[in-house]
Every structure is written in structure tokens, then in C-alpha cells.
């Protein structure tokens, strides 16, 4: 399974970067989201996959008695997911605002206006 996930990480990164190379701002944002997913998965992989067992201590125990998933990457990813939501929301609004003021989604044509100033 790790191999599959490694492959998936690679694909997510490639797709994300590819989307970021596009001229459209919306695609740029989508690319960023794909990239973020790839990064989350990468961190998750670093914590060694453990089938089925969440890092939750059994009800009647005070310590883990069998194998458990690594909690640290999970905490990191949880934070990353929530933050990325804030980022996405802000970026969408920003894009929308740029589009409504400049009337274009093309990053290149934004440049030309920038030079005029």
C-alpha cells in the first residue's frame, strides 16, 4: 500500500505544480489545494501506516497495549487541513475581488496593468 500512496503523492504533487503553471488564477488555487493534499498525505506516510488502529487508548487501559497509528503526524495534518481551509476561503474571495475589479482571470494580463501604474 505504501507504494501506491507514494505514487499518489507524486501524482498529487505533479498535478498541483502543473495547475500552478497555468495562467488562470482559479487553476492556480486548485493546484495549491492539490499540492496541499499531497503534502498531507506525505506527512501521513512518514508516520508509518498502521492498519485500522487509531491512536486512542483503550477504555479500560491507561497505556497502549498494541500497535497504534502515529499521533504526531495526525495532529500536524489536522492543523494543516483546518488552516488550508482558511487559506482557501481567503484566496477565493481575493480571486473574486481581483476578477471583479480587473475583469480578468489571466495572471499575464494582470502584469500589464501592474506595469502601467
Amino acid at each position: 500500500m505504501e507504494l501506491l500512496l507514494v505514487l499518489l503523492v507524486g501524482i498529487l504533487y505533479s498535478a498541483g505544480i502543473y495547475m500552478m503553471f497555468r495562467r488562470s488564477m482559479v487553476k492556480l488555487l486548485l493546484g495549491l489545494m492539490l499540492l496541499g493534499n499531497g503534502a498531507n498525505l506525505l506527512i501521513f506516510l512518514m508516520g508509518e501506516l498502521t492498519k485500522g488502529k487509531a491512536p486512542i487508548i483503550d477504555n479500560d487501559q491507561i497505556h497502549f497495549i498494541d500497535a497504534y497509528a502515529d499521533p504526531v503526524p495526525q495532529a500536524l495534518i489536522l492543523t494543516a487541513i483546518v488552516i488550508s481551509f482558511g487559506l482557501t476561503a481567503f484566496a477565493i474571495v481575493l480571486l473574486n475581488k481581483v476578477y471583479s475589479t480587473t475583469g480578468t482571470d489571466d495572471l499575464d494580463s494582470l502584469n500589464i496593468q501592474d506595469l502601467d501604474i
Partner: protein
Amino acid sequence: MLLLIVFVFVFAFLTLLLGKFVHSKFFKFISIVPFLLFLFFTSFIPLLKDGTKNIFYRTEWMPSIGVSLDFKLDGLSLLFSLMITGIGTLIYIYTSSYLRGHPYLNRFYTYLGLFMGAMLGLVLSDNIITLFIFWELTSVTSYFLIGFNNEDESARKSALWAFSITGLGGFFLLASLVVIGSITGETSIHEILSHSNSIQGHEAFGLILVFFLLGAFTKSAQFPFHFWLPGAMKAPTPVSAYLHSATMVKAGIYLLARFTPILNDGDLWSKSLLLVGGVTMVYGAFHCVFRKDLKGILAYSTISALGMLVFLLGIGTELAIYASSVFIVVHALYKASLFLITGAIDHAVHNRDITILSGFGEKMPILATAGFISALSCAGIPLTFGFIGKELIYESTLEGGVTYLAIGLTVIAVVTNIFLTCSGLLAGIKPFIGELPKKFSKVGKLELGIALPPFILAVLSLVFGVFPNWINQGIINSVTRSIYGDFINLDLKIWHGVTTALLLSGLTILLGVAVYFIVRQSHNSMRFIERFEVFAPQHMIEKLIEKIRVFAYRYTGLTQNSYLRIYLIVIVLFFIGLVGYKLFADVPLQVNTEDLSAFRSYELIVFIITVIAILFTISTSSRLTAIASIGVVGYCICLIFVFYGAPDLAMTQFAIDTLTVVLFVLVLFKLPSFLKLSNRRIQARDAIVSIAFGTLISLITLQALVSPADKEISRFYAENAYTLAKGKNVVNVILVDFRGFDTLIETMVLSIAALGVFSLLKYNTKDEESSE
């Protein structure tokens, strides 16, 4: 002493406020402040008279790095303080008439006050760091003064020139001071004094000296950095008079004098000073007689005089240093006076062309007297202070006996003085004799405020010329002592008997007058000089700057082409190149498949769905499809989290994914539809780059899996989750307890994002409403 300097700065800012409430004709009364300062410094003269005593003031500032606000009052700094405040007072009085009714008069006084404070700080500070700070402050404040007529483009340009040249010099100065400080381990100048041997013996001494001299030479307008000074003539005349007679440019001289006992090694030091000073004084003297603009003449003669001072310091003998201390005063007196006279004429008739101006003597008797005396002092006629200065200069060049060096030095000095004499006559006498041109016949009487300051200065030239011992006993001896170090007792005499120096003086005056008459005849002398403009340092530097600008433009066009994707591609390519190289070169690539778990069929299905969704996201031309596919990718990842023991993650990912899709749908129809903006070739290029990048990431991940990370931290959290934090869901415990502070910050970040969205959109609507 610190209080005094702080007071000057506060006073400067107070004048700024004053302008709002006080009529500009009352501004002359604030001249009392510099005058009081002048009196204050005068009271130190008897104390420092014999030159054996220095007065120290010390306030700790940054003791940990050895920077304290040390101030020292010795002969040298006292002389400069007296000149700064004394001439400053006259400038204050003069300005109140000269710029009366100017809308920004208060601003001008503020700049002037700040500059005065900076200069005082510079000459009084005894710590190399504070010295440097005040040094830079004089550059900054002089920038404002020179560019005071900020609506005039050429004034702004010359202010910038002056600032960049002196500022550049400041950096060099800082470098040398820092090195000096690190060699000696001291930042206080009088402490460093005792380490002069270790500095001169240090292997970096050459570097220190070059950097130090660059700092001093740029400030005191030595060749080839001299050209900012004539440019600075764009400033109002009081500024020129103040900056170029006694203060700003003399700061460089002060610095050289102050560090003479530390850096004078008798070889490199004197050679460079002699060379630069000699070239500058001849160059400036030669140039000044070919100018038509009165201020231009004075500017170049100032450069020449500064060169003379550097030259004298370079000779470095007791007598030469004595001569230089005298000449500082001589020059300050006559040059300030001549500048003020020029300003007075300019103020009256708005003309500074020497070929036109003549015959003002009858209309302006006081000014004419002042001009006459100053010109004589500049020419070195007996009974003026200038005569004594000139005698001393010749004596010190002749001191070496009949050697090539001594004769060479003397010849240079004589040539310079001939031209300086001529320039003095041009600026001080020419405008007042002859016939008054008809168009100026209506010129009225001058105000006292304008005529008096140059007159006072001229009278001082005369008084010191007749009674030289007053100033000699008072201060010159102690100045020489603080520069030269040893006790010294020389006398200023009006009459030395018939000596070589006297003969040379006579020769100088005769030839100077001759040159004056020659120059007066030929009005097109300017054109002669213009032919050499191509070789002028200013011209060359301007060319160089232009070249740099063009280069920067091309370079920026190449690298900063403002295409985001190009930047990204460059970054990604470099990443691939560097990291990829490191990976293949240093890490033994190995894939250990044994430890990896096999995948089950449903996992494969999830994987395939994800890949298809990703491909859809990339390739679709419909926004809705793209967003839906992104959503699918998110849900698939959510499933993976479920498979591998991360229920918290799965829930969060699920919720966030839903919300993101909702968010996109809300604004979807306001977002532009996708356009096909790139052709196949570009797409292929991007695809290759991004696939390479993804492959590299996959390889790195694989390598990382081979050598798993240290689980120490995870183990700590897992084992202590319940015992320390009474929680059993370790992820949650990490979030709200172990790393609670991070979570707190995270919620703040989220809040900021929400506020950002809120303000962005609310502002938008408000804007639209107001425009509607």
C-alpha cells in the same frame, strides 16, 4: 554636554511648531539660541587655553557593546563648536531676512537646527560609534538643506548627489571605525589614542587607512569626489555659506585632524593626504577662475581651500598643523563672508553672473566694505588674517629646506594661492567696483540683517589679522596641541622680517592680481573649460550610473519578468536540479519492499478513483467539474485516513472538503470560466517539469520510508497522554493540551482569515454603494 545636544535637537523641532503660530518676521529672535550656545562655548576658552586639559562627559548608552555617549571638549572640538555656533548665529540672523516670508521658513530653521545639532555632536563626540551616527546625521540633514527648494528638480538632484557621495563615504568610514574598534577593543577615541601603535602595526592598517580616508575625502569634497560641492550650490545661499565655510565640508577636515594622532604613520598617511590634497587644491583653484557664477567661483575655491587643509595635514609637521589650524579659521571667516555677500547681491538683483555684476559699491557700502576686507583676507594682503595664514602655509612647505619635495610643495601652494587670490578678488571686489549696469539702478538699500553678518565676519578677519595673538593664545595653540599631541608654543606674528615666505606672498598677490585682470578680459573662458567636461569625474560617474541603470533594467527584465509561472518553473527546476543531484549523488538509492504492506483490492479502487479525479481536475474545461473532482480527491484521501487509523483526520478532512466545495459553489458563477490560454507546446513543457518534480518527490518519499523517523516524540505523547493529560485520544490531547499553544495560535490565524474575508467583502459592498 549630552543635554546640550539634545536641547539643540529639541529646539530644532520646536521651531517647526513655531512656524504655525509666529509671524516670520519674529524669526530673527530665535537667533538668540545659537548665540547663547556660542557664549556657552566661549566660556570654555580660558579653561582649555593651555591645551593640557580635556573635559570629558560620559553617559552610558549601550554598555554591552561598548557604545556610550562620550563627549570630549578639547581645543579642536572647541574651535569647531565655536565656528558652528558662531557662524550659525550669523546664518540664523541672515536667514531671517534672506528668506523672510518664505512659506517653509520654519522648516528651514528646523533643518538648520538639526544640522547644527548633528555637527556639534560630531565634533564633540569621543566615541567612534556616536561619532559615526552624528556623521551620518550631518549627511542626512544637509540633504534636506541642499534640497530645500524641493520644487526645483536640479536642487533635488544635487541634494541626492551630495547625499549619495557623503553617504557612501559614511559606509567606508563605518567600516574603518569598526575595524579600529575591533583591533583595539575600545570605542572611545581617547582610549584608542593610546593604541595607535597597535593600529599602525596591524596588517589591516592599509585597508583601515583607505576606508577612513574615503570617508573623510568624500565629506570634504576632495578630488575626485569634489563635484557634489558645486552642485550643492543649488541650496539657498545661507546654507552654502554655513555648510561650505565652516561646517559640513570641514567635518572631513575635523575627522582627519582628530585621527591624525592615531593614524599618522608618517608614510602612507602623509603620502595620500599630500597627493589628494595637492591635486584637489590645484584642480579647484584652476577651475574657480573660469566660472561665471559667483557661487561657482566660491564653490571651487572652497574645494581648493579644503585641498589646502588636507595638504597641510599631510605635511604633518608641527608647523604645518599649526598652519592648518589657522587656515581653518581664516577660510571659515572669509569664505562665509563672501558667500553671504553673494547671497545678498543675489537677493537684491537675482543675478549671480560675475560678468554682469559691477558697481554695487555705492548702493551697498557695508556690504562692499565686507567684500573688500574678505577679498583681501583671501588674497593674503598684510594686516588681514589671511596674510598670516598664507605666511604660515609657505613657511611649512619651505620647512624641509632645499629639497625637491619642499620646492614642489611650495610651487603647488603658490600656484593655488595665485588662483585663490584671483577668485577672492572676483567674488569680493569685482561686483562692487566699476559702473553700475542700468538695469540694476533701482536696487534699494539692503536690510541690516543681510548686510551685517558678512560685515561682522570681515571685521573679525581684520581683527585677527592685526591682533593675531588673541586668537593664538585663546585657542589655536590648544587646537594644534590636540592634533599634534605635543606641547607647542608658536607665535603668530604680523611681521616676520623679509623671508622667503614674505617674498612668495608678494609674488602670489602680484600674480593673482594679474590673473584677475586677464580673466576679466576673457568672458568666454567657460568654453575653454567645457571642452574637458568629458574627463570630469562627475561626467564619468554619471555615465557609470547610466550604465548600471541599463544593466539593472536588462537584468531585471531577464529574471523579474513578472510571469508567476516562470518564477515557479525556475524554482521547481532548481529544486529538481539541486535536490535531485544530491539525492542521486549522495544517497544510495534502495527500495526495501519487504517491510511495505501489500494493498487490498478496495484500496486499489480508491487509488484509481483518486487518479481519475485528479486527471479530471487538470483536464476539464468546466469549473464545476474541476471543483467536484477536487472534492472527490479530498473524499478519497479521507477514505485512506479511515483505512489507516486516523478517524479524527478523516472526519476533519470530510467536513473541510464539504465546506470547501460549498464555498466554491457559492462563488462559482462569479468566477471566470476557464480559458484555453496556452498551446500544446507550453503544456508539454509544464507537464514534463511537473512530472519530473512529482517523480522526485516520490523518490524522496521512498527513501524516507526506508529509514523511518525517530518515534521518540510520538512515544512520549502516547505514553503520557493519559497519565499527564487525562485524555485517551492522543491526537486530541496533543492538540488541546501538549501543543495547546499552537492550537491557540492556529485559531487566531483562522480568525484573521475570517476577518480578512469579512473586511474584503464588506469594503467591496460599501464601495459599490457609494459609487452608485
